[in-house]
């Protein structure tokens, strides 16, 4: 036993990083993501708020005009139409949820080849909205389309879905419902997989079946799937842009515009480069979405606290 170095008497010189490792590491790991996200997402939101107070063509000098853009919005017929169409989208798009549940129930069997059926039913979701829009636009073509042909066999007159101001929006929504229903279907199929078989059997012994079983036993257990279906469907409805741009480009007579499309048209198309006015429209859309985002976050927050 000689003078062996005792680690306790001479604590190793640990650097600042080593001493604070647990506190500092998460921020090092977060730094790149936060940097990217701040530059491209968070800061632009505030910039848009500020741009909406200016009259600016995107190139020249921006002129501060206060709330004048918003005042103009109040009397803008096209803005009103867009807002109404957004509401139509929101309401009709939610049909994807029951429709998806219905298809999921239809497909939740174990017969040969059912897996392929499930994937093929899901197929439309994988297609880009551009392709979905093209496909439906051809489907609706007034003379050559398949829909008028089918309607014709039943003896009805010619239909021009996308050319008719009162039908065009619904025609586009239907195209959007196609992939969205597929998405909801897959959510419910995975949800149905996790339904507790014992509860189902117990309810069966109690004489529950059909609708009652679905409503009181199955749907409560599908709550997580329903929540996600709501989130993605509402966000999808308010984000609708591609389909409108491809199928009607806002027409006929601007009757299929929604806020997201109208904003783009005002800020960045041949109709002019009114960045300030466009930003004001975007702010309105953002505030509408914020209501839903706040609700989603609140639900998630409660969930987190519950754990």
């Amino acid at each position, binding site marked *: 036993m000689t003078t062996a170095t005792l680690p306790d008497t001479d604590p190793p010189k640990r650097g600042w990083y080593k001493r604070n490792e647990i*506190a500092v*590491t*998460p921020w090092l790991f977060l730094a790149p993501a936060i940097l*990217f996200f701040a530059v491209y997402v968070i800061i632009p939101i505030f910039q848009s708020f500020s741009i909406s107070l200016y009259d600016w063509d995107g190139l020249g000098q921006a002129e501060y005009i206060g709330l004048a853009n918003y005042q103009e919005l109040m009397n803008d017929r096209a803005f009103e139409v867009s807002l109404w169409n957004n509401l139509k989208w929101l309401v009709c798009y939610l049909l994807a949820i029951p429709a998806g549940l219905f298809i999921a129930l239809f497909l939740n069997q174990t017969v040969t080849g059912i897996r392929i059926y499930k994937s093929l039913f899901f197929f439309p979701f994988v297609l880009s*909205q551009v392709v979905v829009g093209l496909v439906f636009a051809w489907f609706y073509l007034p003379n050559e389309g398949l829909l008028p042909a089918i309607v014709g066999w039943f003896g009805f007159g010619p239909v021009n879905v996308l050319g008719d101001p009162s039908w065009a929006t619904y025609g586009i929504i239907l195209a959007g419902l196609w992939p969205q229903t597929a998405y909801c279907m897959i959510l419910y199929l995975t949800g149905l997989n996790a339904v507790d078989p014992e509860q189902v059997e117990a309810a069966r012994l109690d004489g529950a079946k059909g609708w009652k079983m679905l409503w009181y036993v199955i749907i409560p257990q599908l709550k997580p799937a329903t929540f996600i279906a709501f989130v993605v469907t509402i*966000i999808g409805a308010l984000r609708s842009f591609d389909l409108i741009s491809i199928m009607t480009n806002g027409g006929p007579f601007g009757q299929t515009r929604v806020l997201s499309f109208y904003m783009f048209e005002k800020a960045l198309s041949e109709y002019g480069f009114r960045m300030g006015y466009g930003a004001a429209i975007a702010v309105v859309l953002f505030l509408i979405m914020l209501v839903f*985002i706040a609700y989603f976050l609140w639900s998630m927050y409660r969930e987190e606290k519950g754990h």
Partner: protein
Amino acid sequence: MFPRPIQQASAPAQTAYKTMLPIALILWLLPLIAVAVFSIKPASDFTQGNYWGVPGSFEFFNNYGQVFFNSDMPRYMLNSVLITVPTVIGAVALSAMAGFALGVYKFRSNIWVFFMFVAGNFVPFQILMVPVRDLTLDLGLYNTKTGLVLFHIAFQTGFCTLFMRNFIRALPFPLIEAARVEGVAEWRIFWYVVLPLMKPALAALAVLIFTFIWNDYFWAIVLTQGPDAQPVTAGITSFNAQYRAAYHLMSAGSIVAALPPVLMFFLMQKHFIAGLTLGAVK
């Protein structure tokens, strides 16, 4: 199991179910089947008004040959690949790190940073459009693939971080504790302990982001123009303008443009669905 397995139903009901399945599927995919049939028709079918009848002749090779060798489509496809692949790598890398930080460490602002990513992921694109376009112009990246990639990485990081963090939360925490007790450095814990366990999440996000970015149209038309940088979603519209009313070519072009995500989906179905359900529905 709900609904009651069809095997327990009467024989006629079983037969009815089995015949309804293909019929329902054909109805469901009718618009797509129509386009597939369009894409192998000869041009003469359309001029003669034979839109929905049997194809006059089988022109698969001609039509698709036109798309591949006689148009800008291959360039658009290549652009799409060069935009999509770096985005997938970037977004997955950034969010794996961010998800690790948010999933493993407890610090006061943790949940707020997390909510920032979640909320940002839900905002409408239009609120970002003007400033992001400006920024891209200022950086000299307008109409470049890099400009699109940088934005896509940033935006997708929101969704990916949500997914990664929830996935890491579900991992066995004692494993990390054990490594710490052993004195393993934190970044080594990330690299050697957590990352290998995250493979399913990485795969799920990779296929999902691939599909999202491949199918993006809005940012493609905001940040790029022309065949130098535009991806195939935007390119297909100029392709269609070029072949106006040539439905056989437009159909073939659309099918080609849609194919990569479709292949991705059928090859990686399990991961894809795990990603879509946000891992919340198992």
